[in-house]
């Protein structure tokens, strides 16, 4: 019994090592989330040009892309990814509950934007989403380097 238990522990340890190996390197996580954030910005700028009437079209595609890629914002900020080339403030980890609340808000606002029809409704939901981005950046992001 005891032997079996220690076997289980060893096996568990080996599995944990594999899991850690399979998990992305922290630097890769940081690069990944920076690219995702840039994609958000590009879709926001593009959708903004449409809802402001600067160019013709529907913001729906951009809204759907934003909705699809904002499903787990906080997940892009795992423990240990708080060093190096990041503008994330320490508060992302030290005030985690507040950060996750903000991230959830952005996810909800992106979903609402994707559901909105075109026109004034889309413009209003777009503004809500933009406000949500800023609200999180205010407390959790340093000025962009």
């Amino acid at each position, binding site marked *: 019994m005891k032997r079996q238990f220690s076997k289980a522990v060893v096996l568990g340890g080996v599995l944990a090592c594999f899991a850690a190996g399979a998990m992305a390197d922290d630097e890769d996580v940081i690069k990944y989330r920076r690219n995702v954030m840039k994609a958000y910005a590009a879709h926001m700028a593009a959708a903004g040009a449409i809802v402001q009437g600067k160019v013709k079209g529907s913001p729906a595609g951009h809204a759907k892309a934003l909705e699809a890629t904002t499903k787990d914002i906080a997940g892009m900020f795992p423990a240990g990814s708080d060093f190096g080339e990041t503008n994330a403030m320490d508060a992302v980890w030290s005030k985690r509950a507040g950060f996750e609340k903000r991230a959830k808000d952005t996810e909800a606002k992106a979903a609402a934007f994707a559901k909105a029809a075109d026109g004034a409704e889309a413009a209003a939901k777009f503004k809500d989403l933009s406000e949500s981005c800023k609200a999180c950046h205010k407390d959790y*992001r340093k000025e962009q380097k």
Partner: protein
Amino acid sequence: MARWPALIALLLASHALAAGPDPAAGEYLFRAAGCANCHTDREHGGAPLAGGRKLATPLGDFYTPNITPDPDTGLGRWREADFRRALREGRGPDGRHYYPSFPYAAYTHLSDADIGALWAYLRTVPPVRQANRPHALPWYLQPRPLLVGWKRLYFHPGSYVPDPRKDATWNRGAYLVQAVAHCAECHTPRNRLGGFRVGLYLAGDKAGAEGGLVPNITPDKATGIGRWSRGELIDYLKTGMRPDGDSAGGLMAEVIDNGLSRLTPQDIEAIATYVQSVPPVVHAVRPAEAKSAQDEFEY
């Protein structure tokens, strides 16, 4: 006879003065100046305007004071003349000099009427009893007479004088930027003595407020915001969304949320007019690598 209109204008003006300063006008200026941003320790849930926010600078840590009307820990015993002197001259009621972490180098340019309105508004906020925390400065910066020297070098007191060659919108913008919103306090880099570096007006700082990066907002195309259209700058000041879709963060998000987003469209347009008119300065504040990524971004 030609003097009649001037005389009538004078009478009307004196009537307006007799009616007293307007706290509502003061509240508008208070928001535009962002007083609450520094005088509230928001991070630790501090009461509005009761002070205690840490301003970390290369010279040491400053703690903002309580500006509520509490008689013992705030401005309750101040008279308007004390307030006027604090803003105009950077001195306390007891005559001691303030450190320029309090942006009196900008507030000195406020008009008499606006200082009166600000004071009227500050009397209306709820008093909070909270003692001020002393600044944490190295010993060699503690003697306040040093500030006499600083003022001689870098302080130019006096209310804003409109430039007669420019129109009213530009002058309003210059007044808002230079005196009220005190943009240069963060956006102009400082030398080791805490004075503005010559020739880098609004040109940004690599390690500015709270150790963070402060962007170059002069109209230089490569390192400033020269590629932003007037409409884009106005949108940014109102909403915090940059032309590349990114959203303002950190201190600027506070400035926009609590101040700029509440200003009239005319005032925002005036600020944009003025900011786009300042001399472009080539001053790169972002690391080269991130910068090239960002350039790529702008197309």
